[in-house]
């Protein structure tokens, strides 16, 4: 009964793959200040749009791929993204009603949450704390939310993913 209605898994997977690619695409030194958390943004979008399909498990698995790609401790981003997905799912009905700029503020909180959880893990295993610009990617991510939201929404409608 479910199989007939589920449509467009390919698009969801494609957006996640694109986000993962952008996460490791080589950038100069300023990359670490500017590069937003692409995977987090895509995950939050799909959690808001299709909460019955994309959720904690998807978040966890993509997080695991981020860990593998970026060479962090296995499970570090997985845990953080699972928590982000959980929070998004908890509030998705409320967030969906907000105008986009207001959503961006909540996205900022969610992205900071991802970074904070990730930072806790790195501090826990005894690595030194980063400089202030550790947090700027979240800011850029939140600023990028409106265009990303538009693009992903048009993709979802265009390919009738539901």
């Amino acid at each position: 009964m479910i199989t007939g209605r589920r449509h467009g898994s390919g698009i969801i997977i494609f957006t996640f793959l694109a986000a993962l690619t952008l996460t490791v695409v080589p950038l100069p030194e300023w990359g670490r200040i500017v590069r937003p958390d692409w995977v987090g943004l895509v995950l939050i979008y799909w959690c808001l749009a299709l909460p019955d399909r994309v959720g904690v498990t998807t978040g966890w698995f993509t997080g695991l791929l981020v860990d593998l790609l970026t060479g962090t401790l296995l499970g570090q981003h997985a845990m953080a993204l699972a928590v982000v997905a959980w929070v998004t799912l908890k509030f998705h009905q409320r967030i969906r009603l907000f105008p986009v700029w207001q959503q961006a503020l909540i996205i900022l909180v969610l992205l900071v949450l991802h970074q904070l959880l990730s930072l806790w893990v790195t501090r826990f295993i005894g690595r030194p704390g980063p400089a202030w610009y550790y947090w700027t990617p979240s800011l850029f991510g939140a600023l990028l939310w409106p265009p990303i939201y538009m693009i992903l929404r048009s993709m979802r409608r265009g390919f009738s993913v539901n």
Partner: protein
Amino acid sequence: MKLIFAQGPSITARLIVCMSLSIALMTMDHRQNHLESLRAGLSLLVYPIQMAVELPDTVSGWFRESLASRRQLQEENAGLRTQLLMLKAQRQKLEALEIENIRLRELLDSSFEVGEKILVAELLSVNLDPYKHQIVINKGDLDRIYPGQPLLDADGVMGQVVHVGPYTSTAVLITDTSHAIPVQVNRNGLRTIALGSGTINRLELPYLPNNSDIRAGDLLITSGLGGRFPQGYPVARVTAIQQDPGKTFAQVVATPMAKLDRSREVLLVWPGDFDITVPAATPTANQQAGADIQIVPEDAAGTDEASE
């Protein structure tokens, strides 16, 4: 029709399962390194992504090579030939010295291994966690890479391999905060440990007493004491020394010799694994040189014994 209520376990239950799994994974990954095979298997999943990121670079490289003019290639060829000739000339002398060194050490009953097996690998242009100094190389388990293997570039030690996948491996650089490398001062053999500082052009030597004989400009080479890095490769050059009489240890800072953030080709070394093909290139000359050298120390040893 869309279901309002999701099916299966609730999201909170899923979160709890995912979090416990993550914590278990992290603990195992950090504490016991039991996850090497799992990591190697999973790295296959991300290999296509790494290749996709690498693609523009590969294509542009291919274009650069195939569209280069004949003259450019000839010039490059000539330049490389000259360089090769010069390196060969230097090597001739080095080989004789190497044999002599081995023979002298045999007389002293100490073992010394030279002539390691070497493999050239290339960096993949993927950006990793910006707060860790790691690189990905395009050689893996299929090329017999192993965790802990030393990594060099043309100028010095770069780091060591930490994770090995089937086609790619991850290496940590000597400047990573979690890395330490046993070194010695080339001038006088003073041994110490160089720690990574988290800054790409800076190593710290915090365990040298204030009165130790070290100067700015000293070359630090691997001491081979950790058993991981082969002896005698350049690591860093001392740049600054601060001797505060109130402190027990001097603050010594060094700059890595290897071009950690610029090298694209890296060398993987198998310490103690003799590469038979390279020294065997001119076997007769070596043996003759060795034989010539052999006579002198034996005579000297004989006279010593006689005098006693």
